[in-house]
């Protein structure tokens, strides 16, 4: 039983999603090989990443594929390469991170192997049985694959990253990359640092009446920019005129469910809680120890927000 992990393409170091995918691979048992693919274009890129990957704990072998047609991870070219390796290498499992790269490539690999793909696994019950969220995380399914090769994508937040050092794997070049002639990379546009929309943001920093004035919201904005977060507010802050209405999170404002919700100076009126209680992780910063927000917060910090927030901005 050997697992092939498709590394998140990188030209600089081993990416965190690769390390967490390796975390999932380590739960399967058996050897773990990593495919590092990309295009160095004359530089060090792929080779250096492969060397770094070889040092990752628990990796038995690193396969590298460095070719122009693998630039930008085009699925049409990556998938046949992976399929060739699976067939020649006799892999029992193929894991890719649940990144847009992994989600693009893994199903294509699975279909070419005529096997199902298991998306976004959050747990490994046994080598053929996995847990995964369905219905946007409102239920967790345990699924068993009867296919000879298990192809899965791995939700990074569900697994511990393995240590980036401690291994000494062999590095081998993998052959078989070719241009399928189906697709071409045209351009890429990195997201501007503009703050995301409240309803789609991964992280939200919200302020309440405790902010005392709209003039203090830049404190939150600085933290938000550091976290790539959107800025929200409670109704109390909106009614007090600190910020415009479209900042409002709550029953009468926007209903949000980010991965991280940081409530600053918000007491936690029920109408606010109704708008954010489905957030995955809730942090509350409030100087009133009795504030109801602490009852639903995963992490509560009783502190003066005017001290704590700048400190937090500096720390993250």
């Amino acid at each position: 039983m050997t697992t092939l992990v498709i590394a998140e393409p990188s030209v600089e170091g081993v990416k965190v999603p690769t390390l967490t995918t390796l975390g999932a691979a380590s739960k399967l048992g058996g050897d773990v090989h990593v495919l590092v693919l990309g295009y160095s274009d004359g530089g060090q890129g792929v080779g250096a990443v492969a060397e770094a990957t070889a040092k990752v704990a628990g990796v038995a072998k690193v396969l590298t594929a460095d070719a122009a047609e693998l630039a930008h991870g085009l699925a049409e070219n990556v998938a046949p390469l992976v399929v060739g390796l699976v067939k020649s290498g006799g892999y029992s499992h193929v894991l890719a991170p649940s990144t847009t790269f992994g989600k693009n490539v893994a199903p294509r690999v699975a279909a070419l192997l005529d096997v199902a793909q298991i998306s976004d696994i959050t747990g490994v019950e046994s080598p053929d049985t996995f847990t995964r969220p369905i219905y946007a995380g409102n239920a967790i399914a345990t699924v068993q694959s009867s296919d000879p090769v298990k192809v899965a994508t791995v939700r990074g937040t569900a697994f511990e990253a393995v240590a980036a050092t401690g291994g000494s794997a062999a590095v081998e070049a993998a052959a078989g990359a070719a241009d399928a002639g189906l697709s071409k990379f045209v351009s890429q546009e990195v997201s501007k640092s503009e703050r995301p929309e409240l309803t789609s943001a991964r992280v939200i920093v919200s302020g309440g009446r405790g902010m005392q004035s709209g003039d203090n919201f830049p404190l939150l904005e600085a933290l938000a920019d550091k976290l790539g977060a959107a800025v929200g507010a409670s109704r109390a802050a909106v009614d007090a005129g600190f910020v415009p209405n479209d900042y409002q999170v709550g029953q009468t404002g926007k209903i949000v469910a980010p991965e991280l919700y940081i409530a600053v100076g918000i007491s936690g009126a029920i109408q606010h809680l109704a708008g954010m209680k489905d957030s995955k992780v809730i942090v509350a910063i409030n100087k009133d120890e009795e504030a109801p927000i602490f009852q639903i917060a995963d992490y509560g910090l009783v502190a003066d927000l005017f001290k704590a927030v700048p400190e937090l901005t500096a720390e993250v």
Partner: protein
Amino acid sequence: MLITEEQAMVRDMARAFARERLAPGAAERDRTSAFPADELKAMGELGLMGMLVPEEWGGAGTDILSYVLAIEEIAAGDGAISTIMSVHNSVGCAPILKFGTPAQKERYLRAMASGQMLGAFCLTEPQAGSDASALKTRAVRDGDHWVINGAKQFITNGQNAGVALVFAVTDPAAGKKGISAFLVPTDTPGYTVARLEHKLGQRCSDTAQIVFDNVRVPHEAMLGEPGQGYRIALANLEGGRIGIAAQSVGMAQAAFNAARDYARERTSMGVAIIEHQAVAFRLADMATRIEAARQLMLHAASLRQAGQPCLKEASMAKLFASEMAERVCSDAIQTFGGYGYVDDFPVERIYRDVRVCQIYEGTSDIQKLVISRNL
């Protein structure tokens, strides 16, 4: 009552539209009384403003069941907008469709069916509500024109309509048969919005007092024949009342949904309050009453669709649904406790919005009168 796949699609479309486009702004419109021009434009584009008008006149040409299902869903999103829609469809478009000349249909109905022009229905007067025979507004012939004078009360869309259907006495000696109907463009000199009412609810729907001060319209503006006004006024009485029943059911359903969701979320004594029998049973009663009203409403609509008499059934549906809705909304507030009494949650607004369903298009007392005379 089972509905067809097509009727279900109409309902689902109206529900999605109401949920996504109407409900989010309902509280704000309640606060500001801002007229929902954009919402009505979108509804016009979807065919919701001319549902019963055939395609040849630019309408959607749906059946009556589809119409009441859509009214119910729009009402669940914003009760006030459902009133604008109901008035426009049932006493705006319908009389012109039934009694209008081709020229009148060309001029008004086409624009109305697509929602580009709103209609108003000017029957009620300060001293004459459901007793249409007590009208005081007069229209006097002057050559090939008519000159209208009088005042009309509680006119939905009175300020925003493009055309008003005005009922006036043309032959004082003839009683009910001396009333005629006129299509009056609201930009006609002398058409004056004398006052806008400040209401308990449904605040984004304008309710106006209209004064007619020597309003001159050509004879071609008369809808139907001279003396046919009373018949025209009563022609869609049943349809209007079934529509109010649908509005009541929609608003009650919205209040119920909010209460049910809250009861599932809110905990007391360690459990969601819906786990407390007092709360759960109240919700069960609410749901049952809503369903009973809905079935009365759909039954009346299906009779009307089949062309059968339904005066009694329409009155029963309106009477029962409107009174049910007030009670269900009150129970919804009760489920929320203190939060139901403040405007953080929608139930207090719906409670205010739905109250008028027991009043307009014939009060509950009038409905009982109609029903009792048909026993």
